[in-house]
């Protein structure tokens, strides 16, 4: 990526990069759609020898020789037995029966996590700079599990098995499905097994936002990553002859439209007979060339891919496109590498431009493309598409855990498909700009690799805690993180503990640590049957005999965020409940932390003790948070939540946990 290391505060002179030797001793397993190994991001220039403990392999397959691996790409395997057993043989005219990436997604995520430095990177001139992954010296091991027809759980489990055996340290998983009970969820099972072996699994939260309860990958032993913007934009100005102008975004970097006004038509008024009301969405075959030729076409966002609409407009003879967000997309602007001059505008601008077209006989417009700008404010802003809590499986565990850059991210790309991913886009690019929680997840995977490099003895839970308790929720304008879907203040249901801050995560002061037995007791607290529990424990762990019902309550899992759930019934008038947490001192031997708590509105909160005194490193201290709240009048089946904070501070550290209270 060309901008996010700077945005995240990573620099060569101090902090996480030099402290971790850029992750040189750390191996990141990427479970995705494969890799295009020849891209410069995967060259091994400047890398030390491969860690001797590595047991992985570079498997040969279609268009994939073992010699393609090097000191950067140290492993490449593909898993398709489940896929082929269910779907039949892989169609080798459209994809490779090997780890080679025909989609681009896996190449993008791998280079975001751990790509090497590449100078003069850009997408057709946009986002230009030196591309680099978060952990630029970490090693990449690719496990291809996703194919044109989807990703099969049997293949995914096989990849987890192999990654653990091979010896990866971090697993980056930018995939997911629906939320299932943990014992039915292969990602939960595979990642539990990885966690048992000391491997941190970083997963994407999903792109189901802004709907509540859309969050996925919610098991407490994975790090669940939401997506937000960075301080970079690709502005395009829509100018109307009535002197109105509207701000949009575009990756088009040319001057094809000049400065003249061009006839403008709303796609909804330019449909072929029989287009059945789909013309406004610029669906394939819906536009009448007689109405569109030589014009800029205003299309509504939805159903089909954004870039596909540009293809439809071009094929119908249009010379440009304005794409208008739907109400659910709000004012969030995602840039695409359209095949014609085009820009995306927010919902409000779309409505205004449509009003102008309706009120004008010969509507015209022009699009001015101004290239890449940085230093944009406010940033970060929560992506509208990023999946939201509350956690539908266990509201006692707040999800997502953190947010990271996931909008308009430049990273390496396959040579097999063009930047729009459309069949007719035959442009070959080295880098592409993509958006999704798939893009934010590998950022955090790379940061976790850096923390593993700097603190090799830290558990997966300690690394996760460091990233969570040091995260911030104030943007670069000094305001609370904004929600891109409605421009209101966002909540921990969208950003979790906040936006990752790797500068502070290197030295978090205190961590909320967890081991395998803690997670087993969490499952015991969910009243799992012996069979369900055995899918995780494999007979090696039991519910703690000395554990009390209190310690096995799911909310008492020693998680870096805190969630109270008041299960109100008809007779209930008041809730009083306590949650305990234990922090481990990883800062200075002699340190005293004092409490600064902000109770959720409508909730009385007490924390005991209010001071934590440590005499040595690795010392543990336990505290209790007690909340009291009255019942609320709710529609049956509905819920309400308020949010607070808990901070432990000494002279140099701020250890922050979000608190959620849900009625």
């Amino acid at each position, binding site marked *: 990526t060309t901008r996010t290391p700077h945005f995240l505060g990573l620099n060569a002179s101090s902090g996480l990069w030099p402290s971790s030797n850029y992750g040189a001793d750390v191996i990141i397993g990427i479970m995705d*759609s494969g890799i295009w190994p020849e891209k410069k991001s995967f060259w091994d220039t400047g890398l030390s020898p491969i860690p001797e403990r590595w047991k992985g392999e570079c498997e040969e397959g279609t268009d994939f020789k073992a010699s393609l691996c090097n000191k950067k790409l140290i492993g490449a395997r593909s898993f398709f*037995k489940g896929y082929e057993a269910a779907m039949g043989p892989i169609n080798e005219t459209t994809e490779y029966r090997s780890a080679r990436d025909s989609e681009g997604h896996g190449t993008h995520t791998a280079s975001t996590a751990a790509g090497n430095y590449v100078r003069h990177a850009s997408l057709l001139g946009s986002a230009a700079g030196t591309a680099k992954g978060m952990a630029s010296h970490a090693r990449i091991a690719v496990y291809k599990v*996703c194919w044109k027809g989807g990703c099969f*759980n049997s293949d995914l489990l096989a990849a987890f098995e192999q990654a653990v055996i091979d010896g990866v340290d971090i697993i980056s998983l930018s995939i997911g*499905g629906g939320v299932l009970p943990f014992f039915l969820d292969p*990602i939960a099972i595979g990642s539990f097994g*990885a966690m048992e072996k000391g491997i941190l699994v970083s997963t994407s939260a*999903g792109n189901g936002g802004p709907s509540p309860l859309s969050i996925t990958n919610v098991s407490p032993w994975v790090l669940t990553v939401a997506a937000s913007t960075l301080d970079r934009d690709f502005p395009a100005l829509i100018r109307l002859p009535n002197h109105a102008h509207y701000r949009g975004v575009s990756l088009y970097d040319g001057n094809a439209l000049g400065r003249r006004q061009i006839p403008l038509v709303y796609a909804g008024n330019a449909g072929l007979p029989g287009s059945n009301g789909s013309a406004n969405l610029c669906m394939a075959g819906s536009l009448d060339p007689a109405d569109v030729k030589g014009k800029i076409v205003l299309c509504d966002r939805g159903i089909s891919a954004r870039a596909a609409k540009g293809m439809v407009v071009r094929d119908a003879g249009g010379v440009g496109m304005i794409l208008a967000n739907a109400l659910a997309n709000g004012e969030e602007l995602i840039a695409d590498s359209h095949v014609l001059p085009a820009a995306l505008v927010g919902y409000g601008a779309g409505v205004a431009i449509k009003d102008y077209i309706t009120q004008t006989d010969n509507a015209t417009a022009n699009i001015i493309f101004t290239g890449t700008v940085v230093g944009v404010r406010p940033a970060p802003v929560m992506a509208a598409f990023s999946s939201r809590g509350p956690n539908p499986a266990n509201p006692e565990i707040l999800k997502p855990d953190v947010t990271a850059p996931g909008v308009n991210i430049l990273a390496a790309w396959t040579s097999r498909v063009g930047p729009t991913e459309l069949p007719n886009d035959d442009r070959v690019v080295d880098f592409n700009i993509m958006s999704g929680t798939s893009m934010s997840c590998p950022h955090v995977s790379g940061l976790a690799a850096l923390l593993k490099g700097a603190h090799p003895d830290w558990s997966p839970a300690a690394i996760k805690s460091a990233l969570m308790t040091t995260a911030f929720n104030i943007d670069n304008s000094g305001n609370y993180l904004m929600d891109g879907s409605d421009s209101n203040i966002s909540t921990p249901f969208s950003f979790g503990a906040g936006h990752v801050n790797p500068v502070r995560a290197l030295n978090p002061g205190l961590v909320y640590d967890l081991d395998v037995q803690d997670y087993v007791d969490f499952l015991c607290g969910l009243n799992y049957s012996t069979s369900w529990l055995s899918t995780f424990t494999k007979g090696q762990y039991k519910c703690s005999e000395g554990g009390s019902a209190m310690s096995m309550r799911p909310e008492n899992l020693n998680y870096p965020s805190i969630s109270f759930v008041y299960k109100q019934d008809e007779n209930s008038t008041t809730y009083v409940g306590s949650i305990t947490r234990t922090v481990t001192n990883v800062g200075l031997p002699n340190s005293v932390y004092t409490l600064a708590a902000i109770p959720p509105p409508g909730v009385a909160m007490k924390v005991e003790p209010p001071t934590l005194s440590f005499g040595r490193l690795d010392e543990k201290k336990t505290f209790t948070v007690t909340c009291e709240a009255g019942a609320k009048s709710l529609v049956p089946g509905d819920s309400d939540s308020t949010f607070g904070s808990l901070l432990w501070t000494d002279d140099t550290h701020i250890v922050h946990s979000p608190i959620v209270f849900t009625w």
Partner: protein
Amino acid sequence: AAQAAPAEASIYIVHVSKAHMPPIFTEEEQWYSSTLASVKGYEPQEFNREQEGPIYSYGTVMHGFAAKLTEAQAEALKSVNGVLLVIPDDALVELH
């Protein structure tokens, strides 16, 4: 549609308790193949492990295997001693 094609096979993930592996087997794969042969109605000497056996054997992050089974075979597998769970591999997982 499911009733119209009752014999159609799909992929299942089978969780087992290795503590229940009969002592006549020295390796998990033998147990899995034998178990599959029993629910698929094959005599052990007819059972083609390559075609009818497990697609994958798992022994690290979970204990068990993946196999192609009919619904009836999957149901039969649930009553085999040592089988904990039989889960269809039909949950949609996609790139984010």
